[in-house]
């Protein structure tokens, strides 16, 4: 078991023949991901990385039976690409693209409401199920298989947490990079819920950052329904209010979305919150040891 993606996932790449798409598609293939083809409008019929290129997502799905798509198209066309994938019935859509206008994402969110697709991202590193499928841009080799699930808004900070976890003698089931934009397809709470329901996952690392209320929502859900230990970290304890810290969504707007406020509510909900990002790996190892004792 694992969540969202596994070795049987049939993956297509939107923006397949572009620089980013080509590079990361080949890395995904090298990892062992079952990439069955890609989409670049106007290049249908060609072959790229030994796989077929299609003009539309619908063609790709009809021909290959793809159920997962990863999107590497530029920001101006990314919202359209997400909706195209959803309209073709793709189950899991991972959008890596950073810089999509908010207005476009409001429309995407509305469009996805009555579709069966789950969107991950945008502005995210993707999802990886260790040793099975990498649908993203993360360095695959650091993800050793194990029993810890990861939910994170950030890329390199996820790698950091995973690396510490592996060095602490543990491993990863699935890591979900949900993205750092103000509007994203899958929230922290939804991702935590998926991992909580996964029998292989025994502990969860939840990495958030300043801005928005998703961590608080997830914390309240964990308090109510949690069955596994959760270690949390919030980046941006030292970020000044009103300034955007890289990610479009990482901005302190009021008293509730500061790191301190989020850490407080997470603690109140029973999450082991670490102050220092250097302690994430040790903390999850300790929490898991407690459960197993």
């Amino acid at each position: 078991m694992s969540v969202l993606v596994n070795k049987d996932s049939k993956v297509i790449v939107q923006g397949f023949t572009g620089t980013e798409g080509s590079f990361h598609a080949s890395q995904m293939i090298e990892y062992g991901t079952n990439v069955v083809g890609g989409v670049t409008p106007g290049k249908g019929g060609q072959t790229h990385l030994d796989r077929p290129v299609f003009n539309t997502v619908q063609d790709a799905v009809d021909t290959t039976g793809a159920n997962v798509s990863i999107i590497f198209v530029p920001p101006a066309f990314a919202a359209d690409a997400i909706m195209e994938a959803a309209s073709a019935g793709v189950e899991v859509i991972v959008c890596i693209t950073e810089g999509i206008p908010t207005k476009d994402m409001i429309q995407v969110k509305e469009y996805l409401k009555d579709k069966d697709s789950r969107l991950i991202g945008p502005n995210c590193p993707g999802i990886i199920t260790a040793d099975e499928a990498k649908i993203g841009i993360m360095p695959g080799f650091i993800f050793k298989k194990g029993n810890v699930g990861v939910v994170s808004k950030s890329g390199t900070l996820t790698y950091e947490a995973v690396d510490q976890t592996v060095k602490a003698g543990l491993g990863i089931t699935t890591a979900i990079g949900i993205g750092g934009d103000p509007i994203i397809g899958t929230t922290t709470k939804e991702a935590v819920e998926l991992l909580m329901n996964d029998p292989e996952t025994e502990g969860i690392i939840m990495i958030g950052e300043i801005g928005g209320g998703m961590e608080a929502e997830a914390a309240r859900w964990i308090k109510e329904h949690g069955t596994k230990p959760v270690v949390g970290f919030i980046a941006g304890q030292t970020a000044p209010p009103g300034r955007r810290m890289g990610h479009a969504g990482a901005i302190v707007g009021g008293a509730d979305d500061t790191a301190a406020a989020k850490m407080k509510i997470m603690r109140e909900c029973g999450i082991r919150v670490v102050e220092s990002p250097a302690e994430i790996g040790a903390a999850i190892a300790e929490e898991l040891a407690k459960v197993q004792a």
Partner: protein
Amino acid sequence: MNIHEYQGKAILKSFGVRIQEGIVADNPEQAVEAAKKLKQDYNSDWVVVKAQIHAGGRGKGGGVKLAKNIDEVREKSKEIIGMQLVTPQTGPAGKKVNKVLIAQDVYYPGASETKEFYMSVLLDRSRGRNIIMYSTEGGMDIEEVAEKTPHLIQKEEIDPSIGLQGFQARKIAFNLGLSGAAFKDMTKFVTALYKAYEATDSSQFEINPVLKTSDDKILAVDAKVNLDDNALYRHLDYAELRDLSEEDPTEVEAGRSNLNYVKLDGNVGCMVNGAGLAMATMDIIKIAGGEPANFLDVGGTANAETVKAGFNIILKDPNVKAILINIFGGIVRCDRVAQGVIDAYQEIGNIPVPIIVRLQGTNAEEAKKLIDESGLEVFSAIQLKEAADLVTKVLS
């Protein structure tokens, strides 16, 4: 992207939102001419001289003044233009005022009492939809209203599939206690305001106050317009409204090198790949006993060029006593980043502060060896904890 009040008002007006009219001026003479024109066009005997800076609370800092005659216009403009305006939002250094908006007096006496409201349009992140937030408590600090009398702030959510509806505009106008001509004018105001928000790809409008004049007109006395940076490619005319003099010069320079840099007040500079890890690195500096001097995300490819640009940006800040480079090498190899650091260091020459380089990920050991054998005064680390300890060590 932030823009000035006068620019925001011009955009609102172009969508049919009634505004307090005004003319922008660079010097007292232009201010006098502007006041004369306002007298002619709007019969405004008094005018308001308003400092144009990208920060709120201008009135509190003495940046907004009433002028009752032409001499006063000249005098007050002279005072305000060139002043270093300190408001609760500018920080203690304040911001230099380069322009003033000479605006019509809209608080003239008349048949009914004037009344001030608050209105903003913004994204409700938890819902993924836009909302109009409004209050009868206009003209004051909305954070204060939210804290003391939260029941006086109301919200109207916009369904993206149908947009703002007439009944919603009417509800807002009724909830603000309006009737008659003012009620009608408020529904028009709300409708035009939302239309402007959508059409301009804005990320926030804040109109505080929205005024009901003594002759029952509704208009925007102030306008904070924030445009979505990610959508500026669709609005090249608005992109030109960017005022670089309002931004930190180092941040502007960093932007030119494609570095995401935010200047802070601390003593330890940092250079990191990825926004989340960059924030986490700032936090670790604090835990190690320092204060972060900046946020700096060098992005995915940390090569000699970006590292050099990063050093140059950080070293512009005289408060920096140490620099922590924290790179998690995933697809980018650590030994290449290390070589980049060494090359950049040698090219810049003498860097007067201690450097701590923490490289983790692909080829981290080789990278550490490269740094250690370079002969440069650079501390190397692989674990994040080690890097934190080194920060503590070099600061003591």
